[in-house]
């Protein structure tokens, strides 16, 4: 065998050099593409936007470095490569949402005839849940690192800041520093949870950074904030069996269609989540028992209230991590008052410095937005493309126990922009077939289409509250991008029995005043 192998080895000696020459040529193209700088592109931030941009850039022949660093949360939580979405955002959120739904499904199964022994004793094992979720996250961290290594993207686990417009200093965990120069820089640092300035916030409260790896079950939880993060957390915590109370400063899901938002919160209330409207937190203190006493103020009645909780989860907004970048050293001045970067075409006032993702002002803070924008940006930088990112009509979904999916304009924004007289809003309540047998609440299953009044009635926004709302809305997002009209939607034949088909059955307008409740199915 060895003789045989030696023979092949000799052949290999001829074949290999040619291969290596090819590699050498590609390598030299990369290295000498810009002799003046270490890299063609340095990406600060290894999250959705940063990684997508880096991977597209390397495909186009650029020499790329990615810096990623996670400053521990006030409670000490940290995580690996991949950014917010993978570690403390979309992914663990969706997994916990799924865990909550499965818990509900176990009970519904009984109505369908499943014999579930001691169904009243079914409980969630928080440790098992968090372990499963964290294992999945770690596997994604690993695959991401392997992918970067394979694509020959340099990964630096350090906190990046500018020294001058083309020089970045990365500070590692052990304090050592590494300096690198780059022809282009993309800022994709994202954001972190904001902590209100009240006593006890940083010492005793947790945020979405901590909930998905919390070492002890959260127990009775107070969620401060009613944006989608607060509502989604309160939603799955409640369904998992942990009592949840939500403090709402102004309105739930501010910025979203308010009628749909009220459907969601109604459903959550009917499921047992308590809402304290028009309330702001005053303080959180730790009791001898280890529990937390939270005090809050009702800004309308000026009444103060308090209660004891096991966990207080702050979800009062997120701020962009621009402070630690030392942007003045780079000459970047286009910052909004919330510290985000203003960059309409992802380019800052410094021509070779760009920004992508949550750090951008006025753009949807969504992973697919960051990924798409990051890719298009890389193509413009290294691929000679001129295609800009289209931030209009980006679909999104709030994963509360009863989900809310939407694409396009809310009714409020459409009314503002076009005037109520120029709009026609079609709406309907519906009854999912699967809800009947377990007698699930159908009161909040509702959808609407906001369209222009004049024929062919181009659709401006679609809104849907119901199960699997994300799956329902995704296809319609493509339709809205094509400029779908009510005429086309009405002429689309639905798939039966589904909940998505309700969009094709829309025919009652708000203007008509007719009852939008369904008579019966199949007609």
């Amino acid at each position, binding site marked *: 065998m060895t003789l045989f192998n030696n023979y092949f080895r000799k052949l290999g000696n001829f074949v290999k050099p040619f291969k290596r020459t090819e590699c050498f040529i590609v390598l030299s193209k990369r290295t000498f593409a810009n002799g003046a700088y270490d890299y063609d592109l340095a990406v600060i931030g290894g999250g959705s936007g940063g990684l997508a941009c880096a991977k597209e850039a390397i495909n186009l022949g650029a020499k790329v470095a990615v810096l990623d660093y996670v400053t521990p949360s006030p409670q000490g939580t940290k995580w690996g490569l991949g950014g917010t979405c993978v570690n403390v955002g979309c992914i663990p959120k969706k997994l916990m949402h799924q865990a909550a739904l499965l818990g509900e499904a176990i009970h519904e199964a009984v109505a369908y005839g499943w014999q579930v022994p001691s169904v009243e004793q079914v409980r969630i094992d928080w440790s098992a849940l968090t372990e499963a979720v964290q294992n999945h996250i*770690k596997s994604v961290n*690993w695959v991401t690192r392997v992918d970067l290594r394979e694509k020959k993207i340099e990964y630096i686990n350090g906190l990046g800041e500018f020294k001058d417009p083309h020089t970045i200093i990365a500070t590692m965990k052990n304090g050592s520093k590494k300096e690198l120069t780059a022809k282009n820089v993309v800022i994709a640092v994202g954001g972190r949870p904001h902590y209100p300035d009240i006593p006890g916030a940083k010492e005793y409260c947790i945020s979405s950074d901590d909930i998905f790896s919390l070492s002890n079950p959260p127990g009775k939880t107070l969620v401060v904030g009613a944006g989608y993060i607060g509502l989604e957390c309160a939603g799955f915590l409640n369904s998992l069996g942990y009592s949840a109370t939500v403090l709402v400063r102004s309105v739930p899901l501010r910025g979203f269609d308010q009628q749909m938002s009220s459907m969601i919160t109604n459903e959550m209330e009917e499921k047992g989540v308590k809402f304290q409207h028009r309330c702001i937190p005053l303080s959180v203190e730790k009791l001898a028992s280890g529990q937390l006493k939270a005090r809050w103020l009702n800004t309308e009645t000026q009444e103060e209230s308090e209660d004891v909780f096991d966990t207080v989860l702050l979800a009062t907004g997120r701020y962009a991590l621009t402070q630690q970048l030392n942007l003045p050293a780079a000459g970047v001045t286009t910052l909004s008052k919330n510290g985000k970067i203003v960059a309409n075409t992802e380019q800052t006032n410094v021509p070779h410095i760009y920004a992508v993702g949550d750090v951008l002002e006025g753009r949807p803070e969504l992973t697919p937005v960051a990924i798409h924008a990051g890719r298009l940006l890389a193509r413009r930088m290294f691929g000679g493309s001129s295609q800009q990112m289209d931030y209009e009509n980006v679909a999104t979904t709030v994963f509360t126990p009863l989900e809310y999916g939407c694409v396009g304009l809310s009714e409020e924004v459409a009314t503002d922009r076009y005037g109520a007289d120029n709009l026609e809003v079609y709406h309907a309540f519906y009854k999912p077939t699967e809800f009947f047998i377990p007698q699930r609440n159908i009161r909040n299953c509702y959808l609407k289409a906001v369209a222009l009044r004049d024929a062919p009635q181009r659709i401006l926004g679609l809104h849907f509250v119901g199960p699997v709302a994300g799956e329902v809305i995704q296809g319609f997002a493509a339709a809205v991008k094509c400029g779908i009209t009510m005429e086309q939607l009405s002429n689309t034949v639905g798939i039966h029995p589904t909940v998505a088909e309700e969009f094709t059955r829309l025919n009652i307008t708000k203007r008509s005043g007719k009852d939008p409740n369904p008579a019966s199915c199949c007609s």
Partner: protein
Amino acid sequence: MSGAILTQGLRSPMRRLAGLRQAKSISKSVVHNETILVKNNNEFINKVMNNDKPVIVNFHAEWCEPCKILTPKLKELIEPLHNLDLAVVDVEDNAELVHAFEVKAVPAVIAIKNGLIVDKFIGLVDADMINNLIDRMSGKKKEDA
């Protein structure tokens, strides 16, 4: 014949690996039947590449459920054997080995004999495949020449 070509085709990781460490001392230590827990490249070269016996190398991760089933199974089957060793490589601690062997998913099992890769499988495979591999590695000598 096919074994040799397989060997040839899979040899390039060895080049990369060789580059990681210059000194190649032949291991003359007493034959242990304990599983080799690879902590670094040197250990890998000494105890796996330069091992007189064939070695089954199991790439393992703590966060990987199928690994938690496969690794104990491999230990159970291989530790009693005197002419075959098992090496477990934790992918989090051995990034360069992962890269050298182009491991993109875990669990991954690579069979090494005389410093050459002779077989590879990815994922949790059934007991038959594992047993076949072990029989081939520990039983009859390779005769494809």
